[in-house]
C-alpha cells in the first residue's frame, strides 16, 4: 500500500503534530495541488519578541497522502517559534531532510507544506499593511 517511507515520515503521519485549526488566526495559507488533489491549509498566530515577529502558534489541516500529512506536520514543527523571516526561508528540501527523505515521486507532488507556510506569512503581512 504505502511506498517505502522513512520511520520519521511514518511517525509524523501516524502521530501528526499541530494538527487542527486556530480560531481567529493572524494568517492562513491555503494550497492545492491540481495534479494529485492534495489540499493543505496552514494557520498561524504571530507574536512579538524584542520587536521581532515570530510564529507563536501554528496548525494545519491536510487532505492528502502519507507524505502530504507528514510534511504538514513537519513544517509546523520547523516553523514554530521561528521569527517570520526565518520561517519564510524553510524550503521543501528542509522539510524532506527533516523527515529523513521522501520517496522521489513524492518530492514534488506532496511536499507543498512549506509553500503553504509562506502563503500564511504573506497573508499575515498583507493584513498588516491593510491595517496601517
Amino acid at each position, binding site marked *: *500500500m*504505502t511506498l517505502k517511507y522513512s520511520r520519521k515520515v511514518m511517525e509524523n*503521519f*501516524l502521530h501528526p503534530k499541530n494538527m487542527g485549526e486556530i480560531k481567529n488566526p493572524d494568517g492562513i495559507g491555503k494550497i492545492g495541488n491540481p*495534479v494529485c488533489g492534495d489540499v493543505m491549509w496552514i494557520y498561524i498566530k504571530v507574536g512579538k519578541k524584542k520587536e521581532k515577529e515570530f510564529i507563536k502558534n501554528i496548525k494545519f489541516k491536510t*487532505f*492528502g497522502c*502519507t507524505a502530504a*500529512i507528514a510534511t504538514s506536520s513537519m513544517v509546523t514543527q520547523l516553523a514554530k517559534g521561528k521569527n517570520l523571516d526565518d520561517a519564510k526561508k524553510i524550503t521543501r528540501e528542509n522539510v524532506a531532510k527533516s523527515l529523513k527523505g521522501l520517496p522521489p515521486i513524492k518530492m514534488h507532488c*506532496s511536499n507543498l507544506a512549506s509553500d503553504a507556510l509562506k502563503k500564511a506569512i504573506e497573508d499575515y503581512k498583507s493584513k498588516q499593511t491593510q491595517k496601517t
Partner: protein
Amino acid sequence: MRHIYLDNAASTKVDENVLKSMLPYFTEKYGNASSQHFAGQEAKNALEKSRRIIAKSIKAHTHEIIFTSGGTESNNLVLKGLFFNNPERNHIITTKIEHDCVLNTCRWLETQGAKVTYLNVDKEGFVNPKDVEKAITDKTLIVSIIHANNEIGTIQNLEEIGKICKQKNVLFHTDACQSFTKVPINIKKQHLDLVTLNSHKIHGPKGVGALYIKDGIKITPLTHGGGHERNLRNGTENIPGVVGFAKSVEVANSKDVEKITELRDKLIKGLLKIPNVQLNGPEKRRLCNNVNVSFNNIEGESIGGYLENSGIYVSTGSACMSHSLEPSHVLKAIGLSPVQSNSSLRLSLSKYTTEEEINYVLQILPKIVEKLRRISPLK
C-alpha cells in the same frame, strides 16, 4: 503483528493443495514436454491433463486452450495476434474500464493503424449491449469486454453482448481474470470466441494463464520458436505452473463463493454505516469478493497507510498510488470526481477471509476515518 490480507483482487495466497500438486514438477518430474523420452512424456501428460481441466471448466474443447504467462500475455496475444492476422479489419471495440493490459495494448495498436472504440459504461460500470451494437461496423474485428471489473466488481452481461457479436459476425473476447471460478463462464451460452484466464487470482501460482481460442480462429503469435502450444505461444511450457493452475481450478467451489459473498455483504453493510461513505460499483451483479468505497474528504493512500499500520492490507484508486499520478480510469468512467476517486478504497476478499477479520476491519476503520476527517480541510 497479525496480517489481514484484503487485496485478493491483486493476487492471492497459493492454496496448500495447489502447492502440493506443483512440487513434484520441480525436482522429480522436471522433463521438457517436447522430449520423446519418459521424463518428457510425463511432463507432456501433466500438461495435457491440465489443459483438459481448464477446457472443461469453461465448456471448451481441450485443444482450444493454450497456456501463457498470465492475463497480460493472453490479452496481448488476442488483440495483437488478431490485428496482425486481419489487415482488412482494423476496428476494435472495447470499454473504458478494461485492465491496463488491454487498454495499453489498444493504445499501442492505434499507433499501428488500429481504430479503437472505447465504450462508456453507466454509473455502476455496466456496458449497454445496444452501444456495442451501434459501434460495430464492417471493419470491426473484435469486441473485447472485461467480464468482472477488477476495481469495482461489475459483472457484464456477456450472453447478451455475445449474441450481438454473433449476429454481426464479429469476434467476441472477454478478460475473465477476475471472474474465473467465481462467475460461471460457458463459451457456448455466452457466445465467446476468445477468453483470457489466469491463475494467481484464484489461489494458483503467478506467471501462468490461459487463452481459449475457438476452433478456426487464426492469430499471429507474439513469440516464434519450437512450435509449442500449436505454434501460438512458443517457449518451453511452465509445467509446475500449469499443473498448479489446473489444481486451483479443481479446488474452487461454489461453497467458497457463497461464504465470500456473505462476508462481502457484511463488510459493505458495516462500511456504509460510517457517515459520508459511498459504494462504488453495483449492488447487484457484483463480483463476490469485491468491495469498493469512497470515504469523502479523506485520501485513500493515507487511509491505507493507517490500515497497514494495523496490519490490514488493501488498495486504493487514488492518484497517489498510480505511476501516472492520475486517479483510477475506472472510477472516472463511472463518473467519480477526482476527489472521490482519491478517497476510494478497494477491499477484496478470498476464501481465507474470516468473519473475525471483517469484524476487526469494521472496528478499526471508522476510527481511522474519523481521525483523518479531523485533519482534512475539506468538508
